């Protein structure tokens, strides 16, 4: 409904523009289609934009804390995430916790045993309607328009932590101390380390996607195939097919943030 209306409005806008300056519009269209090939293939989606999303198939992760830890470790290495023992200072991009913590708004009165006993993975939802972006006073947190990833500019962030207040998923961490001495694993030279006093979170592996690789956590879970990742706007993509075939849930859908991470439970 939402999407249709927006597409219609966009189309109407383009049509109106075309009436005034047709050549300019053609040029623009040409330029964008050569830069982002997905645009042309994806005419049924939201005006040709990619929106990355993830499906976590929990059925394959129940009773597999080892895989969950492997995923977290892969992310830790890929993004030079420091380790702090004190929960107060922790930096978490992807982590596991109980069903009640991950889905507090879903009833937990009489859950299946498997749900009670297992832990659930949490990470940034890369919301389509992200409150963290809305509140940031410096645009240090922003949504990448071409792929929907909610990204961060660590060099612009002033560390006001307003985004942490606004994120209803606790997906953001602040560097309370200098993080570099606390990176216990090998340093990944392909990703920057951060400085004290800025916020960070999962970036959907934007840097790996740009190189044509898969998200690190998806790769780490490959042996059980628990993670699907792809373009939510493309009806032919694997994620969309998985979503079409399986009932899924999102975290706190009632808040209107439109999370891009789905769970099969």
């Amino acid at each position, binding site marked *: 409904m939402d999407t249709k209306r927006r597409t219609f409005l966009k189309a109407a806008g383009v049509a109106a523009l075309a009436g005034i300056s047709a050549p300019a519009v053609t040029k623009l269209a040409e330029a964008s289609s050569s830069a982002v090939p997905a645009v042309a293939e994806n005419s049924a989606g939201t005006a040709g934009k990619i929106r990355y999303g993830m499906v976590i198939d929990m059925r394959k992760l129940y009773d597999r804390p080892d895989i969950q830890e492997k995923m977290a470790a892969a992310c830790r290495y890929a993004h030079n995430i420091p380790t702090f023992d004190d929960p107060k200072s922790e930096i978490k991009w992807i982590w596991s916790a109980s069903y*009640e913590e991950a889905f507090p708004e879903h009833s937990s009165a009489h859950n299946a045993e498997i749900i009670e006993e297992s832990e659930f993975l949490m990470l940034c939802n890369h919301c389509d309607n992200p*409150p963290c972006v809305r509140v940031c006073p410096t645009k240090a947190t922003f949504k990448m328009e071409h792929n929907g990833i909610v990204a961060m500019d660590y060099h612009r962030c002033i560390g*006001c932590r307003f985004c942490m207040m606004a*994120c209803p998923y606790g997906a953001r961490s602040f560097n309370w101390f200098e993080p570099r001495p606390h990176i216990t694993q090998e340093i990944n030279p392909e990703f920057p380390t951060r400085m*004290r006093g*800025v916020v960070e979170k999962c970036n959907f592996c934007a840097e790996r996607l740009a190189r044509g690789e898969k998200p690190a956590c998806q790769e780490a879970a490959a042996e059980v195939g628990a993670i699907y990742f792809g373009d939510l706007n493309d009806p032919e993509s694997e994620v969309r097919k998985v979503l079409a075939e399986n009932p899924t849930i999102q975290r706190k859908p009632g808040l209107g943030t439109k999370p891009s991470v789905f769970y099969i439970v």
Partner: protein
Amino acid sequence: MIEKALRGSSRYWTWLGILAIFIGIGAVCYVRQFFIGQGLTGMGRDIGWGLYISQFTFLVGVAAGGLMLVLPYYVHNYKAFGRITILGEFLAIPALIMCLLFIMVDLGQPLRAMNMILHPTPNSMLFWDMCVLLGYLFLNLICSWVILTAERKEVAPPKWIYIFVYLSIPFAVSIHTVTAMLYCGLPGRDFWLSAITAPRFLASAFAAGPIIIVLACLLMKRIANFDAGKEAINKILTIIIYAALTNAFFVCLEFFVAYYSKIPGHMHSLDYLFFGIEHNGEMYNNLVPFMWTSVFLCFGGLIVLAWLKLSKKVMTDAADWIIAAGCLAVFLSLFIDKGLGFVLGGLAITPFETVVEYYPTVNEMGVTIGIWAVGIFMVTVLYKLAVDVEHEVEE
């Protein structure tokens, strides 16, 4: 005019000296925090805002509270406030500077604070808060200075200044409204997500600001031979009583919504603040004694003040001490309610519906005390200036 601040009794200098020591302690604590990190505070991943931001929130209210003098005097021509309106403006300036200091010490990268101006982001309420706070600071600086200078020269203030005076009225309302909007527009923070947050902030501000002015007047009557006049004090007390009652009424409405709807998200924070909340077999209730102290101080103080007024004792000299006690009680109550309960009550319940308690560290309290000392220092100097000018005019 500045030279007046440099001439004073030994008592004045001793007082400033004591404050300077506290400022020094605050500075040392801040330098430690600056070089080691915000990890030195009690804040953490779950409680991302603490003492600093809650003090900021409270002090925005104190700054806005001066409106309760400006409005009657300039708009309703209420002459009894003539001598003390300047005190409202001279309270707003230090309060705003304290606000800015609390924001600065809260930032993880304070040296980048200019990014808020270099990359203005109108969809962020923090951006608007900065605009209205700086605007209100500017308005108060210019109004107080021009009006005090005119008073000293015993001429009427220039006409153009009234544009700024009238402009400062909506600005006073806006600083606290926008500060409330920092909180009340965040999805998932149920305790803050209430349309009554802004009115409630304003109500408590219109009590807390004037209380400081009453207390300062009573003090200056003793030590600086400055009498605000019984009528003025009596009138401010009326304002304080109504504002504090309105605030209490709004808080009661929050209680009704939470406990009648029985929606857990709305109840949890109030549970935590007033009764303690159990989570995974542990009891979390570190703020309960504070919140009940706040309730009793508020009603105790209000009863005393109302009794003074009803019995007409308020006009006697002997009443001064009781007025001071009543005002102090209400002030402390509002301070706990907003400067502690509001921010921490909202944060103690995490997005995972777990409960985390916050305990400020010594270093953090040192910084906080230092900033309060800066504010009190400035109030002392500015109020001395205002009183000296009054005395000069009288002579």
